[in-house]
């Protein structure tokens, strides 16, 4: 099992969610996050005053999937979240040791 974390542009969330649902992803956790990478923040000027936007708003999607569909999930995410411009975000893949569904106590793949 793998945990997939993707940081994407906020307006791409719906697209990404729909695409993931279409390939059978059952659940995900979505968080509003802020940060910066190569795309730095910027300063805007209004009426002579500067307003700094140093951390850029992004959306983080987290989901756990069985190993066999990891490539499909990643490909889907890449396609859905891409604009081709800077700041499209990143995808991280992490190994997961165990998953437990609290209500039933199921473990492993069944608990995803």
């Amino acid at each position, binding site marked *: 099992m793998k945990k997939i974390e993707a940081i994407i542009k906020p*307006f791409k969330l719906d697209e990404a969610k729909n695409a993931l649902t279409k390939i059978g992803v059952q659940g995900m956790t979505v968080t509003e996050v*802020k940060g910066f990478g190569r795309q730095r923040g910027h300063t805007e000027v209004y009426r002579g005053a500067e*307003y700094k*936007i140093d951390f*850029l708003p992004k959306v983080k999607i987290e989901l756990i999937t069985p190993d066999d569909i990891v490539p499909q999930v990643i490909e889907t995410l890449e396609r859905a979240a891409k604009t081709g411009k800077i700041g499209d975000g990143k995808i991280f893949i992490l190994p997961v040791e165990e998953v437990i569904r609290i209500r039933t106590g199921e473990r492993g793949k069944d608990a995803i």
Partner: protein
Amino acid sequence: MQFDLGITRNGLKDVKNRMAQGTVTSLSPRELLRHYSDMVDGLVRKAFQKAQSSVPSPSICLMAVGGYGRTEVAPYSDVDLLLLHSPADQSDLSPLVEKILYPLWDLGLEVGCSSRSIAECVKMAQSDLQIKTSLIDARYLDGEYEFFRNLYDLFSKRVLHRKVRKFAESLAQDLYLRRRKYEDPAYVLEPNIKEGEGGLRDFQIGRWAVRAKYKTDRWDSILFPDHSRILDKSLQFLWAVRNQLHLLSGRRQDDLTFEWQEKIAPILGFSPGARGIEEMMRQYHLSAQKISNFAWDILERVLYEPSSLKRTFLFFQKKKIDPNFGLTRGELTLLDPMTFKREPAQLMTLFQHCQVSHGKMDFRTEEAVMEALPFIDDRFRRKDEVNQIFLKILRRGEGATAILKKMHELGFLSCYIPEFSEIEGKVHYDLYHVHPIDIHSILAVEELEKLRRGVYQRDYPLLTSLIQELEKPEILLLTALLHDIGKGTEGDHSIIGAEIVRQIGSRMGLPKEDRDLIGFLVSHHLFMLETAFRRDLNDEQTVFNFANTVKNLTQLRMLYLLTFADVRAVGPEAWTSWKDSLLTELFLKTAHLLETGENTQVSQKENETVKRLTEYLHLKGIPEYTEHLPVRYLSCYGWGEMVHHIEMALSLEQESLLVRWTLESGRLAKVTLCTKDSYGLFSKIAGSMFLNRLNILEAQIHTWGNGVALDTFYVEDATEEVERRLHHFKRDVEEILNGKITVKDLFPKRGESKPNQQKIIPGVVAEVKVNNRDSDFYTIIEITGEDRLGLLYEITQALTDHGCNISFSRISTLGNRIVDVFYVQDEWGEKLEAKQKVDNLKQTLLSRLTPPNNIS
């Protein structure tokens, strides 16, 4: 061995359930409580008598206290008993207590029992609020009646009617502490029917205060009849809900959670599904509000009502503010009770006085307001004086929310704006919207007031400065109050709401421009949120479209402020710095575009064009296609041309490149080229034209939102063979775009292009300006220089070499001078901002502007 009380645990359950069914058909909720209490009385008495006969016991009195004392026992409420013994009696009562309690416990009753002497009771009641309040409701059950009477007399004399103000203070403290505890929005969605704001405890607090102060148990006797009737209805409703809650859950459940809301709503006769739940919760909130107001009102009266001696003294201190109102120690008083009946408009004046003098009205004046509500009619609502004062209250800002809250509490607001009553207490059945819509709307006004007062100066400096720029802040506040007014009706609440506010506006006599403004803001109050969260703010088109709808800076500012107020009023967690950043970015980019940017406004004539275009696209079945068309494009062509262009773009599915031309003469032609945009496209086209000796006089390069490149050129061929050359050009550009060949490959074959024999004419100074100021999305490069064949190719090639993606361009030739403007981005879709990059680019461009063989 335990006694048999003549009923089993399950038997008792059955009785409860039968009673519950009775509530739906014949019994009122209060009667159910009463019936149930009577039944418990029977059981308790039986247990008491059996216990007394089985263990030797001294003379003693059995009393019901607390809610049980009031005969208000919900199916799983606690049953609190008090055993009163004589002070001399030192015998151990625990065997007796056990004998009483065990059989009751076995029936599943939650019984608690304490045993005290009269003196102990009185002493404890003096120091312990809970014991005191439980004794207020004490009721004799069995045993020595004399004991009960003694306690009652002593308690009334020494405790209940003494230090009434202090008692009221501790009740107020209790009220306040519970409010703090339950102010979490979660409790608004899933209220605690007993302890929560406006819950049953609040009502008791009001009742106890009445009892202590006025020595009567008829709480309704001090209110005017309409008021007490409404209050009683509210109370009955809460009881009805609580009874069901207990019966369904089978325990003392007082949290009205979603789970139970769903089950109870249909039982109480609300419509099925989510709508019924919303209706029930609406009634819940309306009821709770009434009860909460009652508790505070009574406490205020007790706390602030002066003694008769003091009243005479204050009478002389009274300051007259105008012929109708006086002010005493910060309290507004109506001088003549007939005023409102004679002159209803004075109602609004009263509220204005409250705001200006920072005072509150005394409770008699409040009652007078409530009594005068039936006099508010359409004449009142249309009266200029009334409306002007209302707007002034909003405009003044300071304390405007407090006044609105008071108007709302007294029922005045929904009489003055009857449309408002449609959203009173109405809830959304979801987790996001915490408050009922009426409260949410008033909270939105409060957010704006705070912004105006500078409370958010540190956190939101931009919004703070924006609200201070407003010419008519009252219009924004009024909009905030009414922005969700459409939610009382089915359908799109923004559209419906806009219609309603226009009507309200015209009733209030607002000028047309203000009505239009409010209508616009209400119909678009979700537009900024949707754009900021769902659209690409790095795409100029997004901001263009947004700016086009918002139209001007005033509307933009107001929309941003309204969005802020709306989201913040949803609940404390709804507004995050994350949302803030996106909204700020959209605001700033749009403001920039509207203020300093080029003409984003589609003019009247262009509007006509766009309208016809939209009609055409509708016929074609692709109404949303205009979305792709940039404003810069729309302002350049007529309708017929655009239709032609769109047809070309649509046939790109079959062909990858379309080139059409019309000949203006033997040497001049207008060329339209349509293909999918790609990096360096313009330089490939310019190169192909140059290879075919076509001189570009004018050109416009557009990239549409859907990636279509649509370019038009005026080209000239000095040798009058323009048509033949265009055929060649088309073939070349096709091959180049297919990647079969490059422009450079073709150069040697066709030979170096030699400039035409140059006449001696005044030279043109070459200049390259790189402007990063005027657009948030593009670096704008302006180039002037002396024209020559192939120059455009060299310039565009230089731009391509430096990683510039050309999104829009306008090429013109004035005599021998070229004036070219390019809107470019780097390969990441960003502006070119690094100084070194800009300098390098400038240098290259300048060197291309100076022909290598320029010997003069």
